[in-house]
């Protein structure tokens, strides 16, 4: 009986303590900082950051930073180390959450009072974090002066919740060994799609009617990115004039789908059945060329370090300057939790100013994310342009367009249309119509508004 009672009491005690622990605490203990003058230089071009001040009046404070990335892949981690070194009273705990869980856990955490003060953002999930993110406490003119793509992130009040640290777009990756084996040199790098087809044919090999090497491979999830770029090259917008509906079922999308189908069926430079993943096929040396974004460099370095590859700009349909070479997307700067305490938000805002003024943040982002700097002062930087992907992007950077944080359906329904045409034998017209209907249904309750009208050459569209 006594044992039973003791056991019951133990359970009750543990339960009470467990429930109490859920409440958490904001009380910070740790080092107090009394030295405002850090002896450090003011950093930044237009956005200036003077580190010679006390943060949180020098009192200890603990914050959290949430990210799906980690040190070596998320440039904010290095900045946290640098910031904590300057301000010993500030402790920023980094919390890694897997990508799959991040977009359910983060909004729920931000909804409450104990969510992270600072958090990593991917702009495709803008709708989920926008209600909870605080506006940046930095003048918009300063942001625009330092960051070339900042203006597209401003709301109707001229405020931003995040901007791009770096941007990326598609390029053609080619296997240098296979290129040389086919007798091709740098002079053969194509600038138009017609030239590209000829090169791709030279790079294609068959044995007894069976393909053994693809000249160009876009099997897998490459289509969604390719079609958007091809449509922009022809001046077709991805969204309606008012920016609220997808513009998928149109003649240009049909033309481009047919063009891609011709690459496989008419020009025989690849095959639907030649591997299911263009990345893997390229990494295994089975496909000579692929279309991919900057992340491919990281993938190749990590998974296929033996592949010797080159990068060139995605070809265009004519030699003329297109409406846009391609779509771009940015890697976002961190968000500040608007539901956190004033003290935590103040430190978070100070941290944001610190990283935006700090070139090291952008250099790390370029390195870790294989992406082009959105900071104007670094866009001509020799060290950065020494990377092949940066050199391929730099001449086109003014003619890249951002459609905005497009709902997932634009990519997923586009992918479905591609599979319906390439794998299910559906007609292009039917596949486009089906995808358009799906996009319309999915976007019916969305508040999305395209940013295409903010593009500098918007008036040139079809």
């Amino acid at each position: 009986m006594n044992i039973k009672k003791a056991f019951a009491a133990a359970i009750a005690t543990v339960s009470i303590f467990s429930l109490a622990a859920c409440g958490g605490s904001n009380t910070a203990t740790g080092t107090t900082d009394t030295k405002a003058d850090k002896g450090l230089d003011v950093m930044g071009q237009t956005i200036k950051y003077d580190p010679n001040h006390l943060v949180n009046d020098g009192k200890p404070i603990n914050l959290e930073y949430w990210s799906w990335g980690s040190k070596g892949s998320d440039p904010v981690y290095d900045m946290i180390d640098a910031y904590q070194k300057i301000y010993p009273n500030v402790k920023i705990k980094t919390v890694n959450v897997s990508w799959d869980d991040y977009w359910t856990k983060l909004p729920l955490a931000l909804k409450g009072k104990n969510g992270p003060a600072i958090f990593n953002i991917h702009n495709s999930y803008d709708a989920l974090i926008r209600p909870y993110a605080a506006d940046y406490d930095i003048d918009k003119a300063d942001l625009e002066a330092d960051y070339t793509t900042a203006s597209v992130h401003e709301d109707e009040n001229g405020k931003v919740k995040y901007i791009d640290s770096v941007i990326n777009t598609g390029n053609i990756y080619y296997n240098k060994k296979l290129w040389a084996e086919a007798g091709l040199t740098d002079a053969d790098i194509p600038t138009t799609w017609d030239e590209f087809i000829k090169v791709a044919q030279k790079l294609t090999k068959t044995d007894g009617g069976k393909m053994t090497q693809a000249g160009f491979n876009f099997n897998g999830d490459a289509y969604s990115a390719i079609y958007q770029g091809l449509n922009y090259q022809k001046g077709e917008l991805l969204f309606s004039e008012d920016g609220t509906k997808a513009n998928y079922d149109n003649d240009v999308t049909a033309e481009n789908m047919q063009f891609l189908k011709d690459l496989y069926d008419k020009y025989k430079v690849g095959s639907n059945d030649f591997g299911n993943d263009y990345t893997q096929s390229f990494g295994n040396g089975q496909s000579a060329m692929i279309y991919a974004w900057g992340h491919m460099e990281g993938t190749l370095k990590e998974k296929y370090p033996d592949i010797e590859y080159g990068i060139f700009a995605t070809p265009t349909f004519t030699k003329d300057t297109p409406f846009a070479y391609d779509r771009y997307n940015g890697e976002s700067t961190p968000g500040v939790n608007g539901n956190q305490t004033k003290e935590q938000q103040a430190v978070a805002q100070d941290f944001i100013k610190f990283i935006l003024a700090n070139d090291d943040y952008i250099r790390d982002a370029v390195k870790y994310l294989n992406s082009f700097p959105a900071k104007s002062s670094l866009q001509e930087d020799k060290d950065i342009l020494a990377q092949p992907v940066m050199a391929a992007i730099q001449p086109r950077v003014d003619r890249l367009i951002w459609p905005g944080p497009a709902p997932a359906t634009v990519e997923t329904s586009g992918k479905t249309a591609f599979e319906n045409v390439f794998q299910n034998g559906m007609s292009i017209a039917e596949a486009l119509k089906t995808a358009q209907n799906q996009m319309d249904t999915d976007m019916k309750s969305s508040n999305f508004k395209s940013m295409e009208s903010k593009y500098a050459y918007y008036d040139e569209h079809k």
Partner: protein
Amino acid sequence: MKNTKSSGSVLSKIFSLRNIAVTFLVVYFAVFLAYPIFKAFAGSLHDWNPLVGTYEWVGLANFAQILTDKLFWTSMLNTAIFAGVSTFFRIVLGLALALLLSSKIVKCKDSLRGLFYMPTITPLVAVSFVWMWMFDPQFGMIDRVTGLNINWLHDTKWAMPAIIIMTIWKDFGYATVLYLAGIMNLPRDVYEAASIDGANGVQTFFKITLPLLKSSTLFIVITSLISYLQAYVQFLVMTEGGPGTSTYTISYLIFDQAFQKYNFGVASAQAVVLFLFTGVLTLIMFKVSGDTDLS
């Protein structure tokens, strides 16, 4: 003194181990079972996205949307095919192997039973990845061994059969073990009587074994159907519903609506329809078999 004693005994009665255990169970089921089910029913009548706090009454609009959506009916049909075929082969294969293992011609019965049950206890995600590689047309084992040239998971004709093959392989062991238990409990005297009456093997199987295993079969059918109607992991890993939408199942569609598009209201309406469908199907199974006693 007396009062203190009596209040102490009341407290000890309230905080007895039994009461605490029952309370934990009740709280557990209320929080993790009853509340989510109620919330899903309520959510199906709302435009609901808990991640941004949207919860607006829309009545039956979500149901109207899904019932007029072609993809919903495609997914229902795919689910019915997947659940029906997988359940059928799980039972046929499970029963065949159970009969084999219970016969005198097979040695090492315990080892074989363990071997057949191993895929059942292996995580589905891991199994799906392994089979995805096995189905690969360039380096996969299946095409190489059979000499076929099929792009299994990226050909609309073969994607669903490929997933069904994998699912049957993974799950037949469950049926085998249950049938084995059933076979071991069959009364010997009935077989002896059948033997005296001159019944052959086929007659014995169809007239005695199968009817006597009705409870086991019903249990396997119902649990298989319920689990296959909710299947989405293998579809998520192996095809993501593709090519196109050819392997979309109702549970994958619910996952897609809830966690890709964040339309929890629409997803809840789909879940309610699935719930009703599963319930009706289970009732029909009981009625058809004429036996509600699974014990």
